């Protein structure tokens, strides 16, 4: 039986997904991209194959996506993350009309038709505010881990307004908040709110249709998700592994012979 692989080499994580001819997920992997994209892609693919118990020789087609898609020499085809996140989200949640992907260095909002085809999209990558990298910088400042941020922010009684829209300025704002002994939970909630605000302007520009699916690492952050839901006035779909949705979409494209 032939198998299909999708590899998403992002700015922070390199993810791989192996599927069979019926689009069942057999294995996946999430690895740090680090300083060498090709190595990271290799490592992610090797681990995913291992988990799927599929040998590399049985892969019929490989599609690469993400910023590092050009650094995956063994891919048969390269497709943008926009199309791949759309495909992946539509496959997992067929009623998806809007995908919000917040990754490490960019965030994007994608509108799909009912077949999962991209109708329109908007991307923010000019600055780090509104991306996962922004949260990482701030987590480091606050001395908390990324996994804790979501839960911590839920404990806040109120939130502190972070007025700067720029990561550099926001960081100094946070430093001064820490110096004034403001509760961490409230600062974190303020940061989440800032990120949602940035992404929201893109959501507004495109308009929301149908169900919303969030993908990318930041979808693991419950604090951000809750605030986004409040803004949208509706629940969003979150897969247990939101980081692999791009790679899943790439694998689905591979199954279709490389068609986005």
């Amino acid at each position: 039986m032939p198998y299909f692989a999708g590899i998403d080499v992002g700015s922070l994580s390199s993810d791989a997904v192996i599927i069979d001819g019926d689009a069942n997920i057999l294995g996946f992997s999430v690895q740090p991209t680090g300083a060498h994209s090709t190595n990271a892609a290799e490592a992610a693919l090797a681990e995913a194959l291992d988990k799927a118990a599929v040998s590399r020789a049985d892969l019929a087609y490989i599609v690469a996506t993400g910023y590092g898609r050009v650094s995956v020499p063994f891919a048969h085809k390269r497709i943008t993350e926009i199309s791949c996140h759309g495909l992946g989200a539509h496959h997992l949640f067929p009623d998806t009309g809007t995908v919000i992907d917040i990754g490490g260095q960019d965030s994007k909002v994608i509108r799909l038709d009912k077949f999962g085809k991209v109708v329109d999209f908007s991307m923010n990558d000019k600055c780090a505010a509104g991306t996962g990298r922004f949260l990482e910088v701030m987590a480091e400042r606050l001395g908390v881990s990324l996994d804790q941020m979501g839960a911590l922010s839920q404990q806040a009684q109120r939130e502190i307004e972070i007025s700067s829209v720029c990561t550099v300025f926001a960081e100094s704002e946070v430093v001064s908040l820490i110096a004034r002994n403001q509760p961490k939970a409230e600062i974190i909630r303020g940061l989440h709110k800032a990120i949602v605000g940035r992404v929201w302007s893109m959501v507004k520009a495109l308009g929301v249709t149908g169900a919303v699916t969030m993908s990318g690492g930041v979808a693991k952050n419950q604090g951000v998700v809750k605030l986004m839901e409040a803004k949208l006035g509706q629940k969003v779909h979150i897969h247990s592994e939101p980081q692999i949705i791009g790679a899943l979409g790439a694998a689905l494209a591979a199954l279709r012979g490389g068609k986005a």
Partner: protein
Amino acid sequence: MSLTNKLQFSFMKDLGAPALMALNQAGKKKRPPKPNPHFGPPLKSAKRLKEIMTRHYFLARYARGARPVAWVTSGAPVELLRAFGFYTIYPENHGALCGAQKMGPKLCQAAEEHGYHPDLCSYARIDLGHYFTGITPAGRLPKPDLLFASNNICQTVLYWYKALAHYHNVPLLLFDTPYNFRDITDSDVSFMSAQLEEMIPVLERVSGRKFVMERFQEIVQMAHDTSALWGQVLATMSHRPAPMTIFDAFVHLAPVVSLRGLPVSREYYKLLLAELQERVSLGIGAVTNENKRLMWDNIAIWYKVRDYAELFASKGMNFVAATYTNAWAETIHYLDQAKPFESMARAYGLVILNNNLNHRLGLMEQMIKDYQVDGLVIHSARSCKPYSVGQYDMKRLLMERLGVPSVVIEADITDSRHYSEEQAQVRLEAFFEALEN
């Protein structure tokens, strides 16, 4: 105006320029450009265009002292100045030239070193950078005797030209055009035409020439005809396949912008139009395999014009319309020699950047239909706020109303430091994927 300067200028005009340009040509090794399989045969008129523009910039070096020299904004009613024989320089056109030659960052930086903010329009920064350094691909620009600006394109030109007036210590004429929120009113028109009439004594003083109404009317008629011809040139692109691309039009736009009201520009467009009509009748397309037709919004990304032309052509995609090139065909034909001042007020008060966004939306919808456009590429230009504002709403509304997909490329007209190849690439590829499926 000194006699020596006048003699030198007319010598250069009649003998020097043609001779030197021929020499220049001979000096250059004639290596025909590698034929690109994605493009149809190149436009023959391009050679004439190059001659006209080279000669214009070449003669500019000798203009000072021989002819009154004015620096003019792209939206200003230059016809009035032509009646006094002004030699005109368009800093925006010069900025585009610098941008295409990839000199933008250097000149912008020069202006920034003198305290001009990086967020200022890069045409302004290039021009000021040129003032501070003298660097230009055009050899030398003549110092102005007069500055002529109209805020019908933006408010930036007002402050930019004030700075120029200060540095060059010459008079600045400002043509103030009320923004058109709904419909243009009679009082708007009289407000504008009165300003034009008031300029006449200043123009007479600076140029040393008397205003002659008949001469002015002829020029107004000529500008009208030129603009109408330009409109016909653009309209040939509604044919399938389109005989030229917008990337060609960006270049062939130069005469209607900067030599409008002179016989040379009118004659040029007759030539170009005839060639395009012939191509249409023979079914010659600018792109060999035209399968998708696109529209461009905003000013060109000058340092990327060539790359983009090749990229899109390789996909069989041709740009057949642009709001930008259309701007010189949209309103200038309102000019009417029977009512020169009043018609001029309408023609220049109603230009796209001085008109409301509803108008722009309607115009884009119409163009999408007329030119059978399949997709829209929107350049969000960091320099040009008046052109870039509202683009996201426009994008959404055009999608809703006509189902036309679009992509926004964040860049700048000339300052390539605001352009990221990587980021533009992802957007364009995603746009191609959406169009192809």
